[in-house]
């Protein structure tokens, strides 16, 4: 974050090129994130293809209402994040602050619901390990499903926590009047990150909550 409003680092021709480099670099990072999440998604696909029935039964133990609620919350947080980027680029400081606060509130709500769901799984002995208890058939496959559930939603939640940290940073910078039409790159980059985390959930929700509902 060496550059400030109106300044172009010496190795760039102009502000346009500097901005292009920032967003390209952020996208390269997000591509590595696609690979990171891709590994567990692939593991899910492989085991789901082998134990389709057990995965469908295990999926019934997730609460679709809470999953749908969290999906709506996360999509709404993407909207407020997009509005924050808009507010930063047109220089509306108050709108930017409120959009960032709204995004943090929605992100916090998502994590709160997730914590409640996790607690419920512990209570029902659905956490893989010594305490795992499964009444139906194919217990090892069901345990596998919950293993994938906790790893996938866990690394997703970790990304949300990091996102909340980045949003806090943006709020602090905004209070010092850092962003405006001349320079809003950090807001845009955090926006890209936040939307990516939303996309991960867009796939997690049907794969974990909705399979085998019919």
């Amino acid at each position, binding site marked *: 974050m060496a550059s400030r409003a109106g300044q172009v680092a010496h190795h760039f021709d102009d502000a346009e090129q500097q901005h292009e480099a920032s*967003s390209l670099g952020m*996208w390269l990072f997000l591509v590595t994130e696609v690979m990171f999440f891709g590994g567990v998604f692939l593991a899910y696909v492989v085991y789901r293809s082998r134990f389709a029935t057990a995965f469908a039964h295990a999926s019934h133990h997730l609460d679709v209402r809470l999953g749908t609620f969290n999906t709506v919350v996360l*999509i709404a947080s*993407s909207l407020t994040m997009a509005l924050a980027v808009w507010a930063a*680029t047109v220089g509306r400081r108050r709108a930017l602050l409120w959009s960032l606060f709204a995004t943090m509130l929605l992100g916090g709500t998502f994590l709160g619901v997730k914590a409640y769901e996790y607690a419920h799984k512990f209570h029902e002995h659905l956490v893989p390990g010594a305490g795992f208890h499964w009444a139906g058939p194919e217990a090892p496959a069901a345990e596998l499903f919950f293993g994938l559930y906790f790893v996938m939603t866990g690394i997703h939640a970790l990304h949300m926590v990091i996102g909340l940290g980045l949003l806090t940073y943006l709020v602090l910078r905004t209070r010092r009047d850092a962003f405006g039409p001349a320079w809003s790159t950090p807001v845009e980059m955090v926006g*890209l990150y936040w*939307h990516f985390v*939303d996309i991960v959930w867009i796939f997690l929700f049907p794969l974990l909550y909705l399979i085998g509902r*019919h």
Partner: protein
Amino acid sequence: MSHVVVRPRVYVAIFAVLLALTAVTTAVAYVDLGLMNVVVMLAIAVVKAVLVILFFMHVRYASRLTWLVVASGFVWFGLLVLFTLSDVLTRS
């Protein structure tokens, strides 16, 4: 160019479409379509992801180089899944 200002109206419209698609995918999950359930579910998720990438993440307005990087990431993931499944699903 890459530094466009997208109006809030566009964001709200995309948000509404994303909510509608979430409602559709949840409703369809309760209808038995056999193998098609997974196909419909994933198709809707892909459409939602593409909308987020194109509009919320501004890729629609980005340079060709950015397009290439974004596409390569997802194509590579597709290869990973394709080749792994071609092995796993054909074992006897």
